[in-house]
């Protein structure tokens, strides 16, 4: 009986251990292939060269154009999703009638359940043609449309986590503010949002990390042309899109071209790891504050 209990515990622990193996596996795969890559290309060139053309005859391996593409689409997405998402959070938690909120929240969450390839179709066939009516010089593939659609996708991420943070602010603060004669708007933005700021920041960091790693929307709607620019109207390429582009082609294993996707992946991984760790840290501090 005792023995059986122990065996079961070990089996369960082993299952939990798979998650550690996953992390080790990811780091090992990215590092071991990147080592091969960096024996051909110096780290300095990788970080400072302004061109990324590993698939052409004249090869350049500068990550900057891919990084700027990733940054650009992410910035556009956050510029849309942060104000809209935060407004929705404040509205739903402080203004909306309970019954309205109960209907709206699950509906908004549908936005997060739609596969990203579907958003890519939407960006390419609906949003880009619409934007071209307003601004005719917009290219068929561009960062603007991909960024906007990505923003729509992450609105529920920001709104629902921020709303939870606002909800967790103690009632007494709210009542004190109303007692002083403040309006709901003043209470929300002068008392509640500052008190819930760490939770809101966590939601935004997670949204950024999601946007940085997003692949299919940009692969479909933003084009596949690495370009060091912050012009949102021309085709660009993100780190994720490049990995997909190479995976779709037939690049031989072991070549520097093949290894580029791991170097690109490593860059992406390090970036999101930093973002996630900041958010985990803020979240811990935030939990302590209210317990």
């Amino acid at each position, binding site marked *: 009986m005792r023995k059986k209990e122990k065996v079961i515990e070990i089996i369960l622990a082993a299952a939990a251990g798979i*998650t550690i193996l996953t992390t080790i596996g990811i780091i090992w795969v990215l590092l071991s292939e990147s080592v091969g890559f960096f024996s051909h290309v110096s780290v300095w060139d990788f970080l400072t060269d302004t061109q990324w053309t590993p698939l052409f005859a004249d090869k350049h391996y500068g990550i900057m154009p891919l990084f700027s593409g990733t940054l650009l689409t992410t910035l556009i997405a956050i510029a849309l999703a942060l104000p809209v998402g935060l407004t929705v959070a404040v509205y739903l938690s402080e203004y909306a009638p309970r019954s309205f909120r109960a209907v709206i929240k699950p509906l908004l969450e549908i*936005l997060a359940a739609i*596969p990203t390839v*579907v958003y890519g179709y939407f960006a390419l066939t609906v949003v880009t043609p619409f934007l071209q009516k307003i601004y005719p010089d917009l290219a068929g593939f561009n960062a603007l449309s991909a960024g906007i659609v990505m923003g729509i996708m992450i609105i529920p991420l920001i709104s629902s986590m921020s709303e939870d943070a606002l909800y967790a602010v103690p009632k007494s603060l709210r009542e004190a503010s109303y007692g002083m004669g403040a309006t709901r708007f003043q209470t929300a933005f002068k008392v509640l949002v500052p008190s819930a700021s760490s939770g809101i920041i966590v939601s935004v960091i997670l949204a950024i990390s999601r946007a940085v790693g997003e692949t299919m929307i940009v692969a479909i709607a933003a084009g596949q042309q690495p370009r060091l620019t912050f012009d949102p109207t021309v085709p660009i390429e993100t780190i994720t899109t490049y990995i997909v582009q190479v995976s779709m082609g037939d690049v031989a294993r072991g070549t520097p071209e093949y290894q580029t996707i791991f170097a690109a992946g490593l860059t992406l991984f390090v970036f999101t790891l930093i973002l996630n760790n900041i*958010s985990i840290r803020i979240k811990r501090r935030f939990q302590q504050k209210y317990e």
Partner: protein
Amino acid sequence: MNSATKNRIIDRAFKWFGIACTLFGLVMLGIFLADIVGEGIGRIDWDFLSDGPSRKAEKAGILPALAGTLWVLGLTAIIAIPLGISAGIYLEEYGKKNRLASIIEVNIANLAGVPSIIYGLLGLEIFGRIMGMGGSLLAGSSTLALLILPIIIVATREAIKAVPRTIREASFGLGASKWQTIRMQVLPAASGGIVTGVILALSRAIGETAPLIVVGALAFIDSVPTSPGDDFTVLPIQIFNWVSRPQKAFLVNAAAGIVVLLAVTFVMNGIALYLRQRWQKKVKW
């Protein structure tokens, strides 16, 4: 105008702005679904569902992709469900205070934030190359299983956490061992939450495109896979392939494929939502 009136006007204005922002997302969702259904629904017929890919848009169908998606759904479930639930039980019931468990916990929070395409690189090397699975169904499903593992673990832990201590204590009081208590009391009581989490995780898996492309799923497969070792494609990759072509007729195919994919996704999410509500109503501690 005194400041009190001004504040009241700002307050009122923000209320309408809030309503507008809330509706913005929903209106987009509405436009979007209407557009997709309008474009694609006319294309869906028996031939579309039962034909393979073709160079001619009007002859192309989704059968191999749909079959691939169902295969991936099944295999991913077989791999991820036992692992995820076991890990969740361990972290919640056994590993409360030890160091390993707290390392695993931070690790899971980190894994949940790793972009899905990185899992693709992991699957390409570990499952595809080192374990020799190549671009097979098994390699793709194993990759997706690792991807959704954190979601299942977190859902399992939440569901187990909601089971009150008294139930455990009553079971121990009757002389049951720890595992007997978990198996006979805790798991049945937590099953509603666990099942909901599992379905949501699986619905995420069937919408994934990028990791499977990286692992080596192909865009052009003209037969239905018959074993886990076969090459495969899935609906999202088929849609991506069609969207990437310049001809309008292929975009119509993509829209029709999306209608089918969304139908599957929404049905799964609907079932999860229904189970959650039923479970919340039934269980009152």
